[in-house]
């Protein structure tokens, strides 16, 4: 995974690895907003997101030497960010989601397609962001990892510590939670008939 259209700052990274503070600053300038937004979506409060962003970049400085330059820097950066945010959330024991082992056989009701389309059409980005804030930690983190940082299922599984085949379930459940938050009174909230 990488950020499409984004040229990898290979030279900057190489210089930053040697301790060049200017290069490090440039790297920060380039990636801090994206990482902050990532944290803002993943963490419950703005202050948490700010703290997480700072800590991620501090961690990044230490870990930069471990970065494999043959791989995508952006992908690696998001992975570091996701791991850090998830660690923070786990440390707080604030997860609202059940462990994934519990959802092995959970059946998810399929929504009514037209109503789903209507709901998506009517909702603004801001409403979606507000709804995201109401989701459980795991659901939100999964959505952010997938739809913000474009992480693969393998990376999501690794980050969240779930089996790879459950990533789809986590995402689907997260979408259902989101729909419920978006339209409390909608029939979609409880799923339609198949």
């Amino acid at each position, binding site marked *: 995974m990488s950020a499409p259209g984004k040229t990898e700052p290979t030279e900057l990274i190489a210089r930053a690895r040697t301790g060049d503070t200017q290069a*490090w600053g440039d790297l920060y300038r*380039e990636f801090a907003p994206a990482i902050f*937004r990532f944290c803002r979506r993943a963490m419950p409060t703005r202050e948490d997101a700010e703290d997480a962003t*700072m800590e991620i*970049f501090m961690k990044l400085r230490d870990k930069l030497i471990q970065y494999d330059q043959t791989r995508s820097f952006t992908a690696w950066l998001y992975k570091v960010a996701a791991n850090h945010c998830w660690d923070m959330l786990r440390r707080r024991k604030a997860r609202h989601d059940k462990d994934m082992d519990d959802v092995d056989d959970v059946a998810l009701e399929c929504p009514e*397609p037209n109503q789903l389309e209507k709901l998506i059409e009517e909702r603004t980005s801001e409403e979606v962001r507000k709804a995201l804030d109401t989701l459980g930690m795991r659901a939100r983190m999964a959505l952010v990892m997938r739809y*913000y940082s*474009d992480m693969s299922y393998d990376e999501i599984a690794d980050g969240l510590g779930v089996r790879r085949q459950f990533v*789809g379930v986590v995402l689907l459940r997260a979408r259902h939670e989101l729909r419920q938050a978006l339209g409390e009174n909608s029939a979609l909230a409880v799923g339609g008939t198949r």
Partner: protein
Amino acid sequence: MTEPGMNKDKIANGSHIDEMTLLLYVERQLDREAAQGVSLHTQTCTRCLTLLRALDRESRLLTRSMLEQDEPLPARLAEFQEKVKRNMQWIWGVVFGLAILGVYALYTGYIEPWERQFEQAGFGSTNLLNLVVFQGAFWKGWQSMFSLFEVLAVMCMAGFGLFAFRRYLRRGSALAVLFAGFGVLLAVATPASATEFRKGDTVNVKKGEVVKGDIFATGEHIRIDGDVEGDVYAFAHQVDVTGHINGDLICFAQAVRVSGVIDGNLRAGANNVTLTGSVERNVMVWNETFNLDANGKIGRSLTAGGETLTLDGKIGRDFLGFAESTNISGFIGGSVREQGNSLSIASGAEIDGKTVFKGHKEPNVASDAKLGSPLEFTMLERRHEARGGGYYLWRVIWTGTFILFGLVLASLMPKFAVESVESAGQIGASFGLGVLVFFGVAIGSLIACITIVGLLVGISAFMLWLVMLFAAEVVVGGIVGQWIMGREDEFWPFFLRVVVGIAAVRVVTSLPFVGGWAGFIVGIWGMGAISLALYRRLQPRLAPNIPPAPMPTLSNPLPPNTTVGGI
């Protein structure tokens, strides 16, 4: 690949496809066969096609919502890098500022006054160092130095405070409380007492004259024949006290003679000090010769350093001495601890406590001298003569201790250990900061012990300083090991380099003549590296004015009549 909730049978049966499968299809997570099944099905099933499109639109909505730059980068983050840069500049500014201040203080506090005194006193041919040390000009600057170190102590305290509250500093109230606290600390100043300044060739407090408060006198000859109800600070060629000083006498001169009475303490740096009167409290003198006359009396303890100490009078409590030659023929109410070349205890001497002497010669004790307990003597060996097998055995034992200490440190704080070693790689920064920490924290903690900051803080800071000093060799060993064997961040390879480095450092610090200096440099360097790593821990390093974020785009949706490969 089979996902939970995915139902291939339904695809095969021509029934509707479940949402899970459609989602996996949208996300390109199905293998080729399953994807083909979905593709075929959605060509004929409007409902599934609608749901597929809805899911895809939902994905796009999610991505768009998340990527939208709805709020600017917080100022705290935007200014982060600049703050750090500024802070680093500030740190270096402080270091170099202190260095410049030190040079300035050295000149104005020590050299310039000494030059003036030198001219006044007419010491044309005396050795400069001797004058600086024993004429008192050196000591004159201590008051200003204490002010400087008090500032350092407060700065250290501020650092601890900022560290303790760093997570809450963004909250204005916490910041206000913190600074208000320091404001109160600074506001609680010692009230100034009236101080009289006298200057001239001869400064005299005449007999019958009473000076209320402290007196600060400089000149060729200072005489205190009257009464001073306060402390006397005297800087002169000669100081004579025949009168009465209610407080302390702090003086720096070539010759100091006290035949009067001092109710407080006598602290003197001089060529020679003669005490024929009495000092009710303690005496601390650093001089070439100190003579406690038979009529002289010290109420409490004597601490003296110099070349020759003659103690014929009475000392109420203990005597601690560092002198080339010490002669005792008077009374000492407490113990004697002396280190030097020779000690002579003459007939008529009486020492009530223990007598301990470390020196190069056997002490000479008169048979009728009264000692509270048998004299304990330790023969001091010449430093380089001591480097026999035992010396090197102990060096090996200490090397093992350092390695164990390094192992403990690296185990307890692996990340911080690596950071400290990395910081040691920045030799200039580490060494510069090390000088500041080595001297600043040590003296700052001492000041903290005796000022408003408090004993507990002072002792804690000093203990921390000691730990850092001990750990310094481990840290420097780490970077030396990396220079020898190459960099490695994994624990055991990293530790192996620390071991090799410690061994190398110990070899260097064991060398005759240069080993001591090498150890000193290693201590400063390592302390600086640890401090730098600590500093970096406290400081996030980021940068402002960031351009728009990279916009990862969701994979293009697949037309219903196409298939995708599995992962």
